[in-house]
């Protein structure tokens, strides 16, 4: 998708736009009229870009400040993005496109972990993939027949090899890499398209 401008409002309690946000928003394919869900929207770059592409977008987050920030940004740009406070999928039905940039960093020791906002945005459990696994388990029943999902996947630290196949078990889902790999200090980012029934 083409990106909306990057001059989005900043709130220290909200995950800012970073390379991972840009890679997901650029790589995800959304067609006009499709029902789109962005799970864990943060600053909402992907949601705004999907809305501008003509998608009917619902953005969710557990962080209410992320939702308020995105609400202001959408209004300022005349874009329509529906919002709901939710933790992954409970409370939501099925969508044509689901976008997710999960918290993917391995948990920090107790004494080093930041605010609850930081933990929600960053903490992916012991190996960094706990939230992604939970999302993958719930995903299939939240895709329509023509549904697909775009997932930002991060290797922290990079394994040193290009990911050839989706490295997490994704039961009943076919996966292919559509974005990246993009190497950053200490992490390698890629975007995966997931299709049911493969």
């Amino acid at each position, binding site marked *: 998708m083409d990106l909306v401008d990057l001059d989005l409002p900043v709130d220290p309690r909200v995950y800012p736009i970073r390379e991972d946000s840009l890679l997901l928003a650029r790589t995800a394919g959304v067609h006009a009229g499709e*029902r789109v869900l962005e799970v864990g929207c943060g600053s909402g770059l992907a949601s705004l870009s999907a809305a501008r592409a003509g998608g009917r977008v*619902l953005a969710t987050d557990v962080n209410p400040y992320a939702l*308020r920030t995105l*609400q202001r940004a959408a209004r300022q740009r005349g874009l329509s993005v529906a*919002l*709901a*406070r939710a933790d992954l999928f409970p*409370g*939501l039905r099925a969508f044509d496109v689901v976008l997710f940039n999960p918290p993917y960093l391995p948990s920090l020791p107790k004494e080093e972990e930041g605010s609850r906002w930081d933990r929600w945005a960053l903490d992916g459990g012991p190996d960094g993939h706990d939230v992604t696994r939970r999302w993958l388990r719930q995903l299939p029943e939240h895709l329509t027949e023509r549904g697909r999902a775009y997932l930002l996947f991060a290797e922290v630290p990079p394994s040193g090899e290009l990911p050839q196949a989706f490295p997490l078990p994704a039961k009943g889902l076919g996966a292919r890499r559509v974005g990246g790999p993009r190497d950053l200090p200490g992490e390698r980012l890629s975007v995966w398209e997931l299709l049911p029934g493969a």
Partner: protein
Amino acid sequence: MHDDLLEILCCPLCKADLTLKVTKREKGEIEEGTLTCTKCATVFPIEEGIPNLLPPGERD
């Protein structure tokens, strides 16, 4: 929120349909109100246009 958002929401606890009650509307948009589960009767608030679908007890 728009009224048609209701089509893609359900109760996060039991997945049943939700009933909408609007207490404040601005320019056609729902600003304040509630969503109530038709099965388990749990109430989910809508505040400043945003429904909160977190279970009671996890909303702080």
